[in-house]
């Protein structure tokens, strides 16, 4: 392991480096430590699900619906069953109730929950709905056999548009419910009607948060192996939540949870799409149990776009009331949430997160959200990076821009005016949250300074005079991270860690968080190496295997470091007490007299004496019963395991487990400033600047934080300009491949200028807030705001995403 300063080449010229953690003597924490997980990844030696090979593995290929809504009148799989290499063909009727329904963890009042089985039975509800699973000795043969299955469908009218779905008279997707409304919810505090009535102005705007596809680069994949003798089922799955998945799959399959092992090997990205329990995961386990052989299914990208959860999908109207000086009096958001045909794990919960975050970084006395959540004949929406918070931030930030435009004020000033002051924290919002800590103005000011905002506005004026269309967008976001206290979570909001020191002194960390690209193998090792005074290369972080790792919750909601990292710290603290006692015992002294430095334990008095220069040829002043001046952690570890010479009544071994329960969420924040120029002939958008100042509290590894923010912003650029899951009127998925669903490429993304402020949280002892979703949450409104600002001369106040060149051209052209 080499630190950045020791690199053989000069450091790269990056304009705005993130600062290292201040005021720490730490060797690793706060440093740009290179990732320990990288060597296997850059050599191509890591193991994602499809890279795991078991002898005699059978392969599954699915037949999926080509209709959005249809009754299945007949499935003929005889020919497929007889095809070369085919071992079995399963349909929904074959399986019946033998696999439990795909779970939804959200328990909203009055929520309608359709019976969701891994394979369609009587009806198909969306394009991509799995109908049959072909099992063969080879994936090529399985694929061939899929073409031999014939399905007779009776096509039914598809419900595609969410607003139409909510209307009475719309065809009903799940007949038993009578309509398509999954639930209605009103939330918020304050008298919203009075607040809007008291406003000098009330602005209304329809706002769309379009459906997106998460597109983790590794599609989903499942490998299941049932050992009939042992009665054990192992499922390798590309998942963010191995433990939660195990519990749910055990329930679905009726197998004892302790006979089921879930392993999340290397996971190639998730962004929420693998924070779920999918029918395929259960089905593969079940098939392996039926056939007694390993079975594997690797999702194709087409399947991924059709049948892995989508994100966003909200159509709403905001009403925002403000005083003439820009003070916001109230905000109402009436929103129709497009849930899709079924409820996946968190589907109904996403709009509720939007509701919670509607206060944004502002003091808004009255807030109300009215959610109408509807079923449509599409894939389910669920948590996609940000999960409800990008929608909220977008709504609030658009509202701030609309207020500024309405009043002719600078959008920066409107924001500043409504910020809570640093001394007002913890700040209670009208949505019922307590923001832990914050200094929103500091981040804003820093972003203004880096971008030289005043000068930018000056340049914009001059450019406009020359007929150029330059726009500046500002977004001051706050987000909800480190999910979260268990009270607020469907399945526990804590995270676990076991820290074990092996007899040879090597440190093993078992974390219940299951990172998949975020780099916690490194950041957790940084914490442990500093806390234990060992070399980082002596620390190994293990995750993602339910048979090895104690129960955990998983990696999502920007929680792994803040909650899981704290669990590591707490486990080490527990362990250190014991280490200290063993060291004292080995040194023949009292634990209170043990000093620890440079990886060694010694007796404090001896040290002090040495420092005072009193040590002479006579030797140390204190007698040493066992003759040792100092012992290493390794000595302690060996002693703990040999257990021949331990303090009386001490439990042998050197391992501690901690389940950390945070007392609140954390609320990172920041300001992004974007400058764009529009080609008035083509409508193309070009980024001139992208400045982001983020505050995620204390930072363990600035390099990882930068990576998270940059990746998040890139996904936001995708939403703002390119990405949209499009179904046609019949519910056909039009963006069914990466030829039509535009994931941004390198040349579509600008260079980001990043900086930070640092406002620690007291929610956890590390002061960490979390950063995994910040970029995605903060960026979108800034980008959209910049484009709208550029088009302000044409009287534009709002545009829906993705803002395509044609849309812009039409605006410029119509005048």
């Amino acid at each position: 392991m080499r630190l950045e300063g020791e690199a053989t080449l000069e450091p790269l010229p990056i304009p705005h480096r993130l600062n290292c953690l201040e005021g720490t003597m730490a060797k690793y924490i706060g440093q740009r430590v290179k990732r320990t997980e990288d060597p296997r990844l850059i050599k191509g030696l890591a193991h994602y699900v499809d890279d795991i090979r078991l002898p005699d593995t059978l392969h599954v290929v699915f037949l999926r619906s080509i209709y959005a809504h249809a009754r299945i009148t007949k499935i003929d799989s005889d020919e497929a069953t007889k095809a070369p290499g085919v071992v079995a063909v399963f349909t929904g009727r074959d399986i019946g109730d033998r696999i439990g329904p795909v779970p939804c963890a959200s328990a909203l009042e009055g929520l309608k929950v359709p019976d969701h089985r891994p394979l369609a039975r009587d009806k198909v509800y969306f394009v991509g709905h799995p109908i049959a699973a072909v099992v063969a000795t080879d994936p090529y043969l399985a694929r061939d056999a899929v073409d031999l299955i014939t399905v007779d469908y009776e096509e039914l009218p598809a419900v595609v548009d969410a607003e139409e779905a909510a209307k009475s008279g719309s065809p009903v997707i799940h007949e038993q419910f009578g309509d398509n409304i999954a639930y209605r919810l009103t939330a918020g505090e304050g008298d919203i009607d009075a607040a809007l009535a008291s406003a000098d102005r009330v602005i209304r705007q329809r706002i769309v948060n379009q459906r997106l596809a998460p597109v983790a680069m590794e599609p989903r994949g499942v490998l299941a192996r049932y050992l009939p003798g042992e009665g054990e089922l192992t499922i390798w799955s590309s998942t963010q939540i191995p433990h939660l998945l195990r519990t749910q799959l055990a329930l679905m399959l009726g197998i004892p949870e302790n006979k089921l092992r879930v392993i999340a090997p290397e996971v190639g990205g998730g962004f929420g799409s693998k924070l779920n329990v999918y029918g395929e995961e259960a089905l593969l386990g079940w098939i392996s149990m039926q056939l007694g052989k390993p079975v594997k299914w690797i999702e194709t990208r087409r399947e991924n776009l059709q049948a892995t959860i989508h994100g966003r999908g909200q159509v709403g109207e905001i009403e925002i009331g403000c005083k003439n000086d820009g003070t916001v009096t109230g905000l109402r958001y009436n929103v129709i949430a497009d849930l899709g045909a079924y409820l996946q794990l968190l589907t109904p919960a996403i709009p509720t997160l939007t509701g919670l975050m509607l206060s944004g970084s502002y003091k808004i006395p009255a807030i109300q959200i009215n959610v109408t959540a509807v079923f449509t004949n599409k894939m389910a929406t669920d948590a996609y990076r940000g999960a409800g918070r990008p929608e909220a931030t977008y709504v609030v930030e658009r509202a701030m821009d609309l207020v500024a435009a309405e009043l002719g004020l600078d959008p920066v000033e409107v924001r500043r005016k409504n910020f809570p002051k640093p001394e007002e924290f913890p700040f209670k919002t009208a949505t019922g949250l307590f923001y832990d800590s914050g200094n929103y103005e500091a981040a804003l000011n820093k972003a203004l300074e880096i971008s030289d905002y005043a000068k930018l506005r000056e340049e914009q004026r001059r450019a406009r005079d020359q007929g150029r269309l330059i726009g500046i967008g500002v977004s001051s976001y706050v987000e909800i991270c480190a999910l979260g206290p268990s009270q607020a979570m469907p399945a526990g909001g804590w995270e676990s860690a076991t820290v074990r020191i092996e007899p040879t002194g090597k440190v093993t960390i078992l974390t219940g968080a299951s990172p998949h690209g975020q780099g916690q193998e490194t950041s957790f090792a940084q914490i442990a190496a500093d806390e234990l005074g060992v070399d980082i290369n002596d620390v190994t972080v293990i995750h993602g295997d339910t048979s090895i790792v104690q129960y955990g919750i998983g990696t999502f909601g920007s929680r792994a470091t803040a909650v899981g990292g704290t669990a590591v710290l707490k486990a080490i603290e527990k362990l250190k007490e014991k280490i200290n006692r063993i060291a004292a015992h080995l040194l023949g002294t009292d634990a209170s007299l043990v000093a620890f430095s440079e990886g060694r334990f010694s007796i404090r008095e001896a040290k002090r004496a040495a420092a005072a220069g009193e040590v002479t040829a006579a030797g140390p002043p204190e007698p040493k019963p066992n003759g040792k001046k100092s012992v290493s952690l390794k000595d302690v570890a060996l002693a703990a395991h040999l257990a021949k010479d331990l303090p009386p009544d001490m439990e042998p071994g050197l391992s501690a487990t901690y389940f950390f329960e945070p007392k609140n969420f954390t609320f990172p924040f920041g300001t992004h400033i974007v400058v764009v120029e529009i080609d008035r002939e083509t409508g193309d958008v070009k980024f001139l600047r992208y400045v982001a100042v983020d505050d995620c509290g204390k930072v363990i590894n600035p390099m990882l934080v930068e990576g998270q923010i940059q990746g998040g912003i890139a996904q936001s650029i995708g939403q703002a300009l390119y990405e949209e899951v499009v179904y046609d009127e019949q519910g056909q998925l039009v963006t069914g491949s990466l030829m039509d669903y535009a994931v941004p490429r390198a040349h579509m993304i600008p260079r980001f200028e990043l900086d930070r402020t640092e406002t620690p949280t007291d929610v956890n002892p590390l002061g960490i807030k979390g950063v995994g979703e910040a970029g995605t949450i903060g960026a979108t409104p800034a980008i959209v705001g910049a484009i709208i600002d550029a088009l302000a001369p044409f009287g534009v106040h709002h545009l829906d995403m993705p803002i395509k060149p044609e849309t812009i051209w039409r605006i410029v052209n119509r005048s």
Partner: protein
Amino acid sequence: MKIEGTHTLRARRERVFRALTDPAVLQRCLPGCERLEKTGENSYSTTMKTGVGSIKGVFTGIVRLEDVRPPEHYRIAVEGRGQPGFLKGAGDLDLEEQTDGTTLIRYAGDVQVGGTLASVGQRMIQGAAKMMATQFFTALEAEAQTQEGEAPPKHGFFRTALRWISGRLQQILQRLRRSKRHPQS
């Protein structure tokens, strides 16, 4: 997806209409139609091997003629399913006799595709639908120009006809352009 357009066929309206309602002619004119069997009044079962370029699939389904009002109107509905997905199209055809003995066909319809075709071919669907409409009418014109009882146009004809019509279109366009540029001529 909506498609609409017009085609002028150099044949008289009655003849065109008869061709349009003759299953043997329809089979030859519907792009890639390999089989058209009557299953009822104005309804047929069909097998079509159709597509554009190397993108091809075999579809089985039905063809229905509706709202038949000789010699000026009918509606044709085609539905087929196959490995690449399904095709569904329905269109109203209105025939207008022109003073020069030709027939103007206005068509307006709706084309739906599903399955793989829909999810990966969105940029092509409209073009392919138009292309097939052109193929259909080009073939139909040739059919309508033969005398009844005469042998139908030969296999391989479509390609030649297409090339011919595209050449002719270009000539017309060029003529139009020239006349625009030199209004005196």
